[in-house]
């Protein structure tokens, strides 16, 4: 058994301004200064912090972040003067995919590195688009994968990237013709990808590289950003090369294990150039998620490319011509995976799903739908306080200029590399622990076995038909719902 893989997390308090869900509205007028003021009894000390601010304006006002809307003060005030209200700033965070509650839980996970635990049952909608219409399976009776008394049996989350020949070839005299396997083992089924937008790339790239080394995975960076890496960090980097980069990146190409190329007409030739410099290199091709992706993967695999990164947009959707959005990752991945299985080449290839991976469960669900692993991008920015506000104002495109000093509300451009690394490690640590929860519940001890296991998931479309297929259907308009 390999050493137990563990991500070491440590509290890394946020250095950006947190935005709480609730705000207290306190008119004060009419207050009778009674001796049993509810403010003193607030379980979360919301009003004490407010009072501290009143005494010293330099004290941070944390009230909006701490109020849980238990309404004890609202209902208890002797004069009924207090009320609580949802914070409009909180509600306007992010966009329809990166919802405020997703940003909040990512911030909390990055603070502590722990699995978010709360009381009461699930609080969200019944189902939703994309990953929210999949439930994962569990087993009532399994050998214990999770056990609070005797410790946890080891659940492996490592996956392999690289060509996996289905059979070995030999000469008649027994010499092996197949080149030796060059799999790259990453310990968590997620690599750290470049966020879709950012101007302060090199600083963030440094943090991604340090995080990838710490948690034993790979960081994708532009070739220009790979130059700053220390030699010992090179094996944790998967630089993205362009045709121009290749000529003057000899040292880097020799030092890294994996390189990425964008898909293009000459991508196979470029891969050949890279392999000429470093024959041990694994070349991955990034291609946009689209209805043509499966065909293109089959075509490229015949030309020797065996690792593919399928890039959806930030909302996990296909990018179609004309700016239209196509299928969600879950549907597209199932189609691609199914095609490759039918072609008999699925096991030779590695599929990396990228774009719209916002929560730990997306990692597991993308793998269930057929990916080997995922690439995390925007979530790493959110760990640093990003509010995904760039496109929040469709009428005023580009209103928020990421990376321009003074424009980012969370001042991401000025974060320290060590702080950014701590928070990224925390986030991935929390995701790793949550992945273990899902795998443990399923009784699966290896994330490799989760790939394409659609039988261990419940898809809303299928179960809806099975459970409610015999019910009479009524259009919503008929009942004004």
């Amino acid at each position: 058994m390999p050493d137990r893989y563990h991500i070491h997390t440590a509290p890394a308090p946020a250095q950006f301004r947190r935005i709480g869900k609730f705000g207290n509205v306190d008119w004060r007028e009419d207050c009778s200064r009674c001796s049993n003021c509810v403010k003193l009894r607030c379980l979360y000390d919301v009003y004490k912090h407010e009072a501290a601010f009143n005494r010293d304006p330099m004290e941070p006002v944390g009230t909006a972040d701490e109020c849980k809307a238990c309404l004890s003060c609202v209902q208890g005030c002797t004069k009924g003067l207090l009320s609580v209200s949802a914070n409009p700033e909180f509600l306007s965070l992010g966009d329809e995919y990166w919802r405020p509650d997703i940003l909040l839980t990512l911030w909390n996970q990055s603070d502590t590195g722990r699995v978010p635990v709360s009381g009461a049952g699930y609080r969200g909608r019944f189902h939703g688009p994309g990953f929210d219409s999949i439930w994962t399976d569990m087993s009532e009776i399994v050998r214990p994968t999770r056990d609070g008394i005797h410790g946890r049996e080891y659940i492996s989350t490592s996956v392999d990237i690289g060509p996996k020949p289905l059979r070995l070839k030999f000469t008649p005299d027994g010499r092996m013709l197949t080149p030796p396997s060059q799999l790259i083992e990453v310990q968590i089924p997620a690599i750290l990808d470049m966020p879709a937008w950012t101007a302060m790339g090199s600083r963030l790239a440094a943090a991604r590289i340090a995080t990838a080394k710490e948690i034993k995975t790979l960081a994708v960076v532009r070739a220009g950003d790979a130059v700053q890496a220390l030699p010992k960090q090179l094996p944790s980097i998967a630089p993205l090369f362009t045709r121009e980069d290749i000529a003057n990146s000899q040292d880097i190409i020799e030092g890294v294990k994996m390189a990425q190329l964008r898909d293009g007409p000459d991508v196979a030739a470029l891969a050949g150039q890279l392999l000429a410099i470093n024959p041990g290199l694994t070349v991955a091709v990034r291609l946009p998620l689209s209805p043509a992706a499966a065909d293109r993967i089959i075509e490229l695999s015949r030309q020797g490319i065996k690792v593919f990164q399928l890039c959806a947009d930030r909302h996990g959707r296909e990018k179609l011509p004309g700016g239209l959005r196509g299928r969600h990752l879950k549907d597209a991945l199932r189609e691609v995976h199914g095609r490759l299985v039918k072609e008999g080449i699925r096991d030779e290839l590695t599929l990396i799903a990228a774009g719209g991976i916002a929560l730990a469960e997306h990692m597991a669900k993308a793998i269930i739908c057929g990916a080997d692993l995922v690439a995390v991008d925007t979530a790493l920015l959110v760990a640093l306080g990003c509010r995904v506000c760039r496109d929040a104002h469709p009428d005023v495109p580009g209103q928020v200029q990421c990376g321009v000093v003074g424009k980012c509300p969370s001042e991401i451009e000025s974060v320290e590399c060590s702080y950014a690394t701590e928070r990224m490690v925390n986030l991935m640590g929390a995701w790793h622990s949550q992945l273990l929860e899902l795998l443990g519940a399923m009784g699966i001890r290896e994330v490799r076995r989760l790939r394409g296991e659609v039988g261990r998931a419940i898809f809303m479309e299928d179960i809806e038909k099975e459970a409610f297929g015999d019910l009479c259907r009524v259009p919503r308009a008929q009942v004004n719902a």
Partner: protein
Amino acid sequence: MSSATVDVRAGAQGCATEPKRAHAGQSEWPQETIAREIRPAPDRYRNVLGKYKVDRGANCASCGRCVEACVYGVHKKPTGYAFTLRPEDYLCVGPDCAETAESCVAQCPQKAITVRPNSSAQCMGDPRWSSDLILATWHQAATGHAAPEHLESRLGASGGGFDVLRFKFEVPGFEEPTPTPAGTEIDTSLDLNHRGDSRPQVHIDIPVYGGGMSFGSVSIHTILGKARAAAAWNSFTCTGEGGYHDRLKPYDDHVITQVATGLFGVREDTIQRVRIVEFKYAQGAKPGLGGHLLGDKNTPAVARMREAVAGNALFSPFPFHSVYSVEDHKKHVDWIKETNPRCLVSVKVSTPTDVDMVAVGSYYAGAHIIHLDGSYGGTGAAPDIAKKNIAMPIEYAIPKVHKFLSAEGIRDKVTLISSGGIRSAFDVLKAIALGADGVVIGTAEMVALGCVRCACCESGRGCPRGIASTDPELMKLMSLEWATQRLINLQNAWREQMIAVLARLGMKSIRELRGRSDLLCILSDDLEVSK
């Protein structure tokens, strides 16, 4: 019309007519009888929360016109008072009245009155338990009768499951069934033993009983309130896995002892003193994970009950370490049956893809009750990722299991109980129409006790409203008498609504509704999915 003005005593007589059936009492401990009486149990906080906020501005002249105008009793000016009192705005029905010419807003000569949605109330709840549903549940628990129409008391706003299922009579365009003749007595009771074995019959007067909540996750007042309400309604409550508190003994005949993976507080005595023993294989909110009590809530009293060290987080293992197969499961059931030869055995499982096979396996292992706990069920503490993602919601599991048990020819030999997101009387009816015999509720009872769904049950001192907390100070926020009455009232309100629906459907018993999914329809704009 607000039923605050209704004579609640009338309701009490209405439902107390059904005699408590005699049963083979198990416990030798003196059992306390709790009267099934409906009495007002108003909100325990000073300011009752309403859907709307009514403000009277500084220019109010205290003329008292608003008092005359309001038929709901929002405005009050007792005789001899110079000023009108602070409006009791929780009684206000909102724009339906406020926008008419007869309203206080229109009648006020000073134009001093405003009616607007209450932002504090809007902060409560979530899509599953909407603010309206919480307020409606509070109203039912306070009065014992259905909530007024301005509060949505049947549905949440989750956009799926029960929230898109409707009885056909609720939707225009379907034929109205012939109602049951007025005056016919409608039966809401259930028998729980359908195995036809030598064990005694257990009869409950309502198709609902209380879910397991351990001492530690909730306060002793919450536990005892549930037990006393169960005694009043001749139904059951469940210990959860925190052990059998001494103060539960007077209600032994209405308590289910839970045997969960941690085996906290499971002793020969606690198995022998009850009429039903429940195995908890998994819990809907955290399927595949064990129970979890965070260290802060493990107070000395809790630790004593669980024979653990105070202040340490307590994790229950998953799964049962003695059960790796269905044969092992049978051994488990046999062990309980041997220990208590007169009890029924319930098996509580979560809802994996093969939930139908699990149910059949449990039946053949000897279970009397199969209890399915759907994935959106409640909990005192669970990882968010588990609550949202693992296992299927109960709405899917009920028809799946019901159809499978029917096809196996054993549907009538087993009692199918469902839980995990049953919030209202209509959810109960829909679950039964989908194929369950009855339901178990948990969160609905907590809401009746004043829960606002702030989801802070697990951390620090626990529930800020004193329900799910063993903190000596916080638990005093709620008295036992009040808790008991709220829960008795809630069951009465639900039962009245169930009877009204059964009468409308032309039925005489809740048992006739089981599996009648033909009475339901589903709201869907995706008409192709239809068979």
